[in-house]
């Protein structure tokens, strides 16, 4: 159910995503992310079009982390920041991170390929139901995504919403 993808540019790294709905303990989960009990990025699935969007953010985060050029303080906060179409860090956390009242969460983990990741440990910490990551479209808000990323109907003539979102994420440093 969880989704794993190797980063071809950084062969030692792998990205694992887990998606949960009907989450009742968002407040605790946030605390665990902050104190390091959960070593991952907690993302609001309403802003996620597809797992690929997360991978693009994670790839860029790892790249900047390795070159010492991150804009935020940690790899996980950088992933959240990279999802945002703007360069305002606190706005990114607000829109893409989870809040205490959220009932769905997407957890992103970046780890060594060889590290045996204790996924069950993380799953046990979430009071909610795990669903397949490719079902994120059940939980997202397309209208909200289009509004935040400022995607006009004419752009959809040349590609999907995912294309529009990913392109902005990749080019926001110079746009």
């Amino acid at each position, binding site marked *: 159910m969880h989704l794993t993808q190797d980063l*071809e540019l*950084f062969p030692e790294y792998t990205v694992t995503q887990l998606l949960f709905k009907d989450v009742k303990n968002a407040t605790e989960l946030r605390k665990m992310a902050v104190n390091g009990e959960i070593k991952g990025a907690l993302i609001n699935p309403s802003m996620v079009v597809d797992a690929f969007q997360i*991978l*693009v953010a994670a790839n860029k985060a790892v790249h900047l982390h390795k070159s*010492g050029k991150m804009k935020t303080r940690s790899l996980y906060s950088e992933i959240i920041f990279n999802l945002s179409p703007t360069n305002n860090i606190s706005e990114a956390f607000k829109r893409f991170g989870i809040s205490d009242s959220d009932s769905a969460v997407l957890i992103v983990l970046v780890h060594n390929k060889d590290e045996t990741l204790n996924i069950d440990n993380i799953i046990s910490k979430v009071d909610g139901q795990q669903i397949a990551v490719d079902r994120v479209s059940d939980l997202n808000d397309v209208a909200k995504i289009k509004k935040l990323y400022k995607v006009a109907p004419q752009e959809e003539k*040349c590609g999907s919403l995912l*294309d529009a979102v*990913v*392109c902005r994420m990749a080019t926001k440093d110079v746009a």
Partner: protein
Amino acid sequence: MAHSDSVKASVPSYLKEAQMIKQGAEARVYRGTFLGRSVIIKERFPKLYRHPEVDEKLTRRRTTQEVRSILRCRRAGISAPVVYFVDYTTHCIFLEDIIHSVSVRDHIASAQASEQNPQHLQTLADKIGEILAQMHDEDVIHGDLTTSNMLLVSGAEDQNMKLVLIDFGLSYISALPEDKGVDLYVLEKAFLSTHPRTETLFERLLKSYSASSKKSSAVIKKLDEVRLRGRKRSMVG
């Protein structure tokens, strides 16, 4: 500096494994896999014949202009490859791989060779004129318009044919009819020299451009002026 070595190692060692498909004076183009998808990687390698500082500045500018122009085109609904990732340290752009496509250059060449379906090429000329009009209306100057820099996606034929513009390395933003006229002039020169006996086809392209663009008359006027310049041309006012 082991830290920076490991960074420099990532993209270049990745490129070593990737398949190089073209080497130009400016960049090398590879095909590879990125996050599970097929991608094209455009690497602007360092030019040793240039002064290093100048090279770095120029290469960085070319990379950012390319990426900016692609986004600007896409926002307006003009097909260009999606940018997935830009590495500003090695000046590599990771782009969507437009699979199942053929360059307009190859397409026209084979259509002429098999001598079938002249109507089909007429529609192609119409579509090219249309897409360039849209691009110029967005004030994007491509800078290197040739039929090799346009891809025709196979599948949808005739009215539904899809054109994708590529290689925005020399592109910039400008509202001036002069710049748009020059853009078309570059295409005209490339078109007529690459594809013999296509004068009427190019005429049709320009007609379609005029019909599709809101600001075309000034641009065509400039195109006529530009044609009168250049080699072996009388500059008698």
